[in-house]
């Protein structure tokens, strides 16, 4: 197995899914081509200036920043639907439409859902 696509469609806080996805991403970066795809509510993870202090959770956007080699795809229609398209997003992401999102998923060896 050479490549893996982690698909996150859950909002970053309020459950352990996004944090769990990022931990799985982190351990996979050694020796594999890893892509994180943000879809649906998962696109909230791409918002800049997250402040999770009062949630007693790690700042998940900071975790994304720390993995510079990770490719992060964000589903643009999901951003638009949630009013985030004109907001400040973290710099390391790529915006893709439906077709390109699907192509990227097809091109990797496995897809793991969160």
């Amino acid at each position: 197995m050479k490549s893996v696509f982690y698909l996150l469609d859950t909002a970053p806080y309020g459950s352990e899914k996004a944090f769990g996805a990022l931990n799985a991403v982190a351990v996979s970066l050694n020796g594999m081509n890893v892509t994180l795809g943000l879809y649906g509510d998962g696109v909230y993870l791409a918002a800049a200036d997250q402040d999770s202090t009062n949630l007693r959770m790690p700042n998940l956007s900071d975790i994304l920043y720390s993995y510079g080699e990770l490719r992060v795809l964000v589903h643009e229609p999901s951003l638009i639907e949630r009013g985030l398209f004109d907001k400040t997003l973290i710099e390391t992401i790529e915006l893709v439409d439906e077709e390109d999102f699907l192509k990227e998923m097809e091109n990797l060896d496995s897809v793991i859902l969160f």
Partner: protein
Amino acid sequence: MKTLTIVLTDGPYISEYAEIACKLTEEALRWYHVNIFLYLDAVHIPRKGQTPSFFSNIGELFTGLAEKGVVIRACARCAAARGYIAEENLENGSNCKDYHPGIRISSLYELAEMLKKSDRVISLSR
């Protein structure tokens, strides 16, 4: 023989994914070596002492898979967060006294190793 890895993230009974994974594994064993990685709430699946009223005892189903050679590992961080502690010694193939035989708590790095060595991966998650 090819290798199949199944990744689960949901606990038992909240969805049918654990039972579906069992059925898929039973069939897949004809052609594949099967790994199952239990992540997030899925670490509850192998817990001893489950007494579901209307469903199959999923812990017993999973220990049955382990007896057939399926490698079943649970994420250590997720397990510890939910009160399942890994011990140094193995007893009946398990390193957790709260787990059914044959199922071990392991590092998340084992998930990455399973993925690297797999020909196919199935992820079941709500």
